[in-house]
Structure formats: structure tokens, C-alpha cells
């Protein structure tokens, strides 16, 4: 981990708001994140924590009623959070930063042949047309592991299974060799067996095409498989960032503990599975203090009053919790975290 590297994408104190039925929803409340070249960063959090919204802002793909109201996102020397016109975004979307969405069923145009869809992406972003684009499309199809690519390029999406369709979507996203590939829960809609294959595929493509990958997921199993670094998000904020080993074996934010704790694989038959009670807060309302406090069984009084700052656990690991303040009472990481490794070994 070279700490002196310059990040290729740097988001600082980003704030995003949505207007919904006359009310304002603060979806992202001061998030900062750095992305380094060649790494795989996983953003973990529940539905509604804002992980998709955050990454969509890198592509200018927020819904019409959303807008970036604060902070900066620096990419390639420019502050892309200030981009307003489609023309500016076109230079980035698909070319430099590309996205794979969750549902392969709806990500493809059902009326166009698969080959055509990949060719379009190539033509639009790289300006290559005709026969050469067609060849590149077929090459991409075989790169993503679709057998008999020549024949399958002439087929329509409904002739592919779910896992195959997701491979095609990945092919379209990666066809232009973007710098950054954002995968928004790419395997959630797929079976466990296909999931493993897709993760392998993305890993291979990443090496082959020299991409940086951001994974958005709520599944820690996926994170353990793919990530170099992990950022944990809760209620519109990033609450902990670190290397994957640090997060799994040395986490400090109570939400990360709760996430690690609540895995069904750790369950003991006959006992209750440790779980995170309650529901994430409604972001229409102002959040006081630490957003996770109402659901934290061991909350401190100050969690309800003031928002904690980031504390350094190590050079690569920061956590936003009052537990790391020197004045906090002695808190041990839950035993289950400490014994995670041993249990899995069994």
C-alpha cells in the first residue's frame, strides 16, 4: 500500500440532496473518499445508505430531482462535481468512468442484438466504426467468457441467461477500457454459483485492461473475495475506511462490528443470530450526532449529541466513532470479530 500515491479520483466533503414531494432529503452528508490506481475498492452499506447515489454522482447520473450541493470531486485535474452540461459528462461517461448496474434483465436493450450494443459503445466512445468495431465487440465477448462469440453476437438479450446477460453488460462497460469501472451490486440478482464466476471475471478483466474497480455491495462475502480496500457507509456518510484485512480483523466502528456480526455463516444452531436491530434513520429529518446511535446497543451519550470526527487507527485505516476518542471508556471489539478467523477456518 503506497501511501504517497496520488489518488486518481478524490471526493471531498460531498453533499447530495434530493427534493421529494416538496421536502428535502439529504442523501449524502459530507462524504470523502480517495481512489488509487489499480486497486479494488468496495463500498459496503445497507440499502438506503447512499452508496449508489454517491457513485452515480461520479458519472453525473443523479436523478433529475437530485443535485450535488457541496464538496468537490476531483478527477483528472477537473472538479467534476461542478459539471452541468451533458457535453461535459459525455467526455467521462463510458470513456473514463463506466458503470455496471445491478439488474442485467433491464440493463440491456431487448430489441437490439448483443453485438450491436457492444459495437455502439465502442463507436460512440472511441470513434471506431464498422468492421473493426465488430471485431472488437466479438473479442470483448470472448474476453468475458461467452462461448462461441461469433454466433452469440447476433442474438438478442432474451436468448441469454441471467449470468450471461451480466457478462454482456460487463463487456459493454469494459469495451472502451475505462479508467474506473463501478460495479453496483453486480451479483445481487444472480445465484450464488454464477456470482462467484462473475467476480472472477471482473477480477480477470481488471488485470487485463488495467482498470480500477469500485464495488458497491451489501454482501461481506463479496467484499472478502474482491476488495483491496473497503469503505463502510451508513446513512449517507462514510464511517470507516481501511484495507480489507483491517476492516475484517480490526474494525472499530460499531456499525462495522454489527455488519460483521450478523452474517448467517457465523450462526450457531439453536441460538439467536446476532443482528442489527431497528432500521436506518429517515434522512428527511436532521440527524443529530452519530446516525447509528439509536441502533447501537452500546451507544455513548455523546453519540446522540455530536457527530464524531474521523480518528486514525493506522496510516491506512480511519474510523468515525467516538469509541476511538481517548476520553471514551474502554471498549473491546466484540469477541466474535476476534474469533472470526478461527471460526471460518473450521
Amino acid at each position: 500500500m503506497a501511501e504517497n500515491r496520488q489518488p486518481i479520483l478524490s471526493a471531498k466533503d460531498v453533499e447530495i440532496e434530493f427534493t421529494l414531494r416538496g421536502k428535502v432529503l439529504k442523501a449524502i452528508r459530507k462524504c470523502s473518499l480517495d481512489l488509487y490506481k489499480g486497486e479494488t475498492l468496495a463500498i459496503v452499506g445497507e440499502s438506503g445508505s447512499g452508496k449508489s447515489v454517491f457513485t452515480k454522482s461520479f458519472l453525473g447520473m443523479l436523478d433529475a430531482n437530485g443535485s450535488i450541493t457541496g464538496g468537490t470531486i476531483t478527477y483528472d485535474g477537473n472538479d467534476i462535481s461542478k459539471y452541468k452540461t451533458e457535453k461535459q459528462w459525455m467526455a467521462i461517461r463510458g470513456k473514463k468512468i463506466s458503470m455496471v448496474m445491478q439488474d442485467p434483465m433491464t440493463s440491456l436493450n431487448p430489441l437490439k442484438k448483443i453485438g450491436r450494443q457492444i459495437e455502439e459503445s465502442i463507436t460512440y466512445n472511441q470513434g471506431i466504426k464498422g468492421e473493426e468495431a465488430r471485431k472488437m465487440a466479438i473479442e470483448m465477448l470472448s474476453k468475458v467468457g461467452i462461448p462461441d462469440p461469433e454466433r452469440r453476437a447476433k442474438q438478442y438479450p432474451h436468448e441469454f441467461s441471467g449470468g450471461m446477460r451480466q457478462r454482456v453488460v460487463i463487456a459493454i462497460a469494459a469495451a472502451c477500457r475505462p479508467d474506473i469501472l463501478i460495479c453496483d451490486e453486480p451479483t445481487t440478482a444472480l445465484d450464488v454459483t454464477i456470482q462467484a464466476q462473475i467476480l472472477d471475471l471482473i477480477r480477470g478483466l481488471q488485470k487485463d485492461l488495467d482498470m480500477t474497480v469500485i464495488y458497491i455491495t451489501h454482501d461481506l462475502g463479496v467484499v472478502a473475495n474482491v476488495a483491496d480496500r473497503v469503505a463502510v457507509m451508513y446513512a449517507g456518510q462514510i464511517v470507516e475506511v481501511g484495507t480489507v484485512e483491517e476492516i475484517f480483523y480490526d474494525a472499530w466502528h460499531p456499525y462495522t462490528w454489527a455488519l460483521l456480526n450478523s452474517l448467517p455463516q457465523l450462526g450457531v444452531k439453536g441460538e439467536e443470530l446476532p443482528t442489527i436491530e431497528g432500521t436506518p434513520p429517515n434522512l428527511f429529518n436532521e440527524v443529530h450526532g452519530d446516525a447509528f446511535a439509536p441502533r447501537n446497543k452500546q451507544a455513548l451519550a455523546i453519540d446522540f449529541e455530536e457527530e464524531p470526527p474521523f480518528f486514525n487507527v493506522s496510516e491506512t485505516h480511519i474510523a468515525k466513532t467516538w469509541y476511538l476518542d481517548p476520553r471514551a471508556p474502554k471498549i473491546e471489539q466484540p469477541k466474535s470479530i476476534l474469533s472470526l478467523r478461527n471460526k471460518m477456518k473450521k
Partner: protein
Amino acid sequence: MASKQDELFRFVEYSPENAERIGYSNYSYWRSVMQNFLKRKSAVFMLFVFVGLVIFSFIALAIGKYDWATLVTNTDLAFHKPDGEYWFGCDNLGRDYWCQVWYSMQTSVKLAALVGGGECVLGIVIGCLWGYVRWLDRPITELYNIINNVPMIIYLTLIALIFRGLSFPVMCITLIAFGWLVMARNVRNLVFMYRDREYNLASRCLGTPISRVLVKNIFPYLISVIVLRLALSIPGTISLETTLSYLGLGLGIDTPSLGILLRNARNYFVDYPYLLVFPAVVVALITITFYLLGNAFSDASDPRNHV
């Protein structure tokens, strides 16, 4: 300040109720529909125009110099141009045109409303059953095909022959009997789409009778489409009636309608254009305003637009 903060570093008791509590969003479907609709200024304007027209038709008859029922033919006044005495002039038989136009408008709107309502009810009921009850799909589809494939003119000519001309009630019933087709088809397509969604499977699992599944589970999603169909149907009926009257298959000469007026004006409009212009403008106004109104309401009642 530091010490005050320091003392907050203690554990507090955990409340499961607070963990579960979420914000309350005061969302009411119909209120959202109204809000959405009112945001479209052009639609609100159309609403005023349409209602204004209807109300005006009553006022117009009241302030008109002549009462429709007591019109007499007076060949001396034939083709009298519009002036202070006869605001819309007189028709070929010397009768005041003003009250004719407004009275006809009322008839046409009444017909369109009744037919629209009838098409709605019949179309929704048949459409729902068509889409939901599997074994009814085949027979109703055949019925639909039979009725749909024969041009309406033929049916109407037959009926006109049988009933010796079309009176208002007969016209109403006939138009409803053919108008339900499109509504039923639209409804059926939607019912098909929603029929096997999980919440409907859950209702089946719980033993909910078909009538309640259709009313509570599926019907609320049909509102947008139904309103749209209605919006198209009402101006459509008026146009249809106009066309039929023009062709001589419409209401009898005694029942005034905009179509009859247009038909009469056909023979004379080159020399006396006012005979055509007044009813034509009224037809156009009603058709356009209601169509735009209906479209706007349909958009407003689609929950996907409620942001």
C-alpha cells in the same frame, strides 16, 4: 466546554422502539394527484375553458332572445347574417342559430358523457374479467374480434334500419355497445400484467375472492389508463356523432346536435360560412380542451409521476 463533553462519554440504555422508528411521510395518493395536476398550468386553463363552455351554454340559452322550443320556421329570415338581433344569424329555415348551436352543444356533451360513462363501466368490468379469469380469455377474445372486425358503419346502418332512425337513447346504447372494446382491451392488458405479481398471489393464498382482488389490488393501478381512455373517448364520441350525423346516420333531424348543424351547413357554407364556423369552433373547442385535460389528469394520476 471540554468537561461538559467529557461527561457524555458514558453508555446509555438501548431502546428497541427508537431503533424501529422511522419518519412519517404524509403521503396521500389523491392529494398528490391534485398537486401534480395543478402544477400543469395549461391543464388548469383547459379545465376552466371546458367548464366555462358548459356553464356558458346554459347561460347562453337563458340570455338568448329565442327559446329553442318555440322556434318557428320563417322563410323570410332565412340566411339572415349575424347581427344585433340574431347573434349567430339564422339558418336556412330562418330559425335563430344562437340557441341552436348552444342547445346542440348540450346534447352532444350529454351524449358524450353518457356514452363515456357507459363505455367505462362496461369496458372495465369486461376487461377485468377478461384479463383475470383464465378460461374467459378465449371466448371474450373471439367476441372482441367479431365486433371489432366489422366496420361500425355497417352495424349502425343495420340498427338505423331496424329502429327506423336513431333516437337519443338508441344512439347512446349503440355507441356504448361498440365503444367498450378499446377500454376493455386496455384494461385487460394491465390486468394481465398485474395478475401474477406477488401481492396478488398472496391474496390468492389467503383466499381473497376475485371481486375484492380486482377492486382493491388491481383497480387502483388502472385509474391512469381509464382516465386516459375516457379523455379520448369523450371527444371521440362527439366527433363520431358529428361524422355520423354528417353522413345521415346520426340522430334524427328533430334532436339537435352539432353534427346535424354541420350537416345542414354543408350545403350552404360557401355562401354563408357562418353556418359552418360557429358549430365547428364549438366542436373543436370541446374536443381539444377535454382531450388535453384528460391527458393531464391521466399523467397526474400515475403514481410514478408523484415526486
